[in-house]
């Protein structure tokens, strides 16, 4: 589905992310782990073609289903974003426009992607049910919902778009542990029901381990290690990956 070669994201002279090679098949989940500032979010933005809006530049090749994305025009990109590929941003509440209701955003987005008026309501409700949200939430403004609800709403929104690839940037780190596991559950459902390929970003390897088929560990913009989840979690080749694993707090490890 996704094929990345020698992707490099830079701001001015500084390179903030460099991915030599990455392949992701339909229905697969790729986990990206790494400490804060390691370039995870920048990688995600680059995949969505959003880097230049932040003032950065991208080199290298990204292909989606065989189509080269790096050469797309603005207009062509719009046919990709929200239709074939979508993204959930790191901070759930901040990523919703404070002045419009959740329903308005949802409706406009569906309209944008050609969902006929008659179908929209049903589509919205179905998507909300999947993330266990009451459709009443559509009439609320972002400041009237909790962070967990906002995050689940964002997932419902992109799920309703039936995209092929979903990029989720730290969808759980802003949440309580109890809500965290529910979100993971929803993502798992998406992948199982719709065969969506997911890029899942987190600094917590334990969370990634629950969902991902492959894991990529980043540090200071570079890929440290890359491989199947079980291999990375249980037989990490790099010292840094081991540190990262050790940093995950575990009940009953020391006292």
């Amino acid at each position: 589905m996704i094929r990345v070669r020698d992707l490099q994201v830079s701001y001015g002279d500084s390179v903030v992310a460099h991915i030599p090679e990455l392949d992701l098949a339909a229905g697969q989940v790729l986990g990206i782990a790494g400490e804060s500032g390691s370039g995870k979010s920048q990688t995600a933005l680059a995949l969505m073609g959003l880097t230049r809006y932040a003032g950065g530049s991208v080199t290298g090749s990204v292909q989606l289903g065989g189509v080269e994305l790096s050469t797309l025009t603005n207009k062509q990109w719009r046919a990709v974003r929200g239709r074939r590929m979508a993204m959930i941003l790191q901070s759930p509440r901040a990523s919703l426009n404070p002045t419009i209701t959740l329903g308005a955003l949802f409706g406009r987005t569906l309209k944008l992607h050609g969902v006929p008026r008659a179908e929209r309501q049903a589509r919205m409700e179905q998507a909300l049910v999947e993330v266990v949200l009451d459709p009443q939430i559509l009439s609320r403004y972002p400041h009237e919902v909790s962070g967990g609800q906002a995050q689940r709403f964002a997932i419902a929104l992109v799920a309703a778009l039936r995209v092929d690839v979903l990029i989720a940037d730290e969808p759980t780190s802003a949440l309580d542990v109890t809500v965290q596991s529910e979100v993971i559950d929803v993502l798992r459902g998406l992948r199982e029901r719709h065969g969506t390929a997911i890029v899942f970003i987190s600094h917590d390897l334990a969370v990634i381990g629950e969902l991902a088929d492959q894991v990529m560990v980043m540090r200071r913009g570079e890929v440290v290690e890359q491989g199947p989840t079980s291999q990375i979690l249980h037989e990490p080749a790099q010292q840094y990956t081991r540190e990262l694993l050790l940093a995950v707090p575990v009940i009953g490890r020391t006292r």
Partner: protein
Amino acid sequence: MSRYVASRVAQAFGVVLGVIVLTFVIARLIPGDPAVAYAGPRASAEELAAVREQFGLDQPLWQQFVTYITGIVHGDLGISLHTKQPVTSDLIQVLPTTLVLVGIALVFAALIGIPLGLAAARSQGTLGDLAAKVISILMVSMPVFWLAILLQIVFFSRLGWLPVAGQYDTALDSTSPLYSVIGVPVVDALLTGNWPVFASAATHLVLPVIAIAAYPIGAVAMVTRGALLENLGDEHIRMVRALGFSELSVFGRFALRPALNPIVSLIALVFAYALTNSFIVESVFNWPGLGSYAVKAIQTLDIPAILGVTLVVALLYVLLNLIVDLVQAIIDPRVRA
């Protein structure tokens, strides 16, 4: 929402009351005997006493204040020393002119300033952005009386494109007489379908409107740009981009709306500024509005008229602020919370 409205309205009332107290205090501070000013210097002692009684000037101060407030409540602002007419009726006569002038200028400010700010924000950091910023700053830095004279010199004296002053060409009165509706020729002509006068009035509007609108245009453009940029870096903009919305929607719908709040609050500020500027512009362009009235009142030390103008300006300001607050509450639900 209704609770919010109620509390804002109550606050506005409080402010108005404060303004009234303040004007009253200032009126008492200004030296001179209002009775003499009204009755004239040759009035006899009895006449003066009669005037004092008529205006309650013989009563203790607190009672005078009560009378003053009661008068205001009944729309009575006293008699102008200069025109010898009730200040209220004078104000009713001059206010529409000013409101039309300032109103049109503010509409222009929004129509030009917002797109200018949008364009600048879109091209942030480029030369175009810098140019837009410099133009905006020039506009807000321009002394209005100077600008008004320059406009007259350039567009009337040198180029001869536009009329120099007045509201319309009064020579048209004989061929197409104008009937007064609200007392403002442009509007009257429009309402009565008097096209020759309307055309003339419209051309007479151009220079005064430019002079008044300059500051608001610059200010609105600057604020729009700033507010948009503040929003553009936000996550929710990134989100709608990721959802595939066009750049036009991103700016026009998603970034502008939350940015409207500072723009709307600016309107009240800009209105106050434009009103003060209209004082000068009206006198340069010889428009018989609140400004001309105020300038005349200042020159003739016509205290009741000056206080009336003060009160009206303050009331307008408070009213506009109230509207602004309510509009903001509609635009941005967070304000209500």
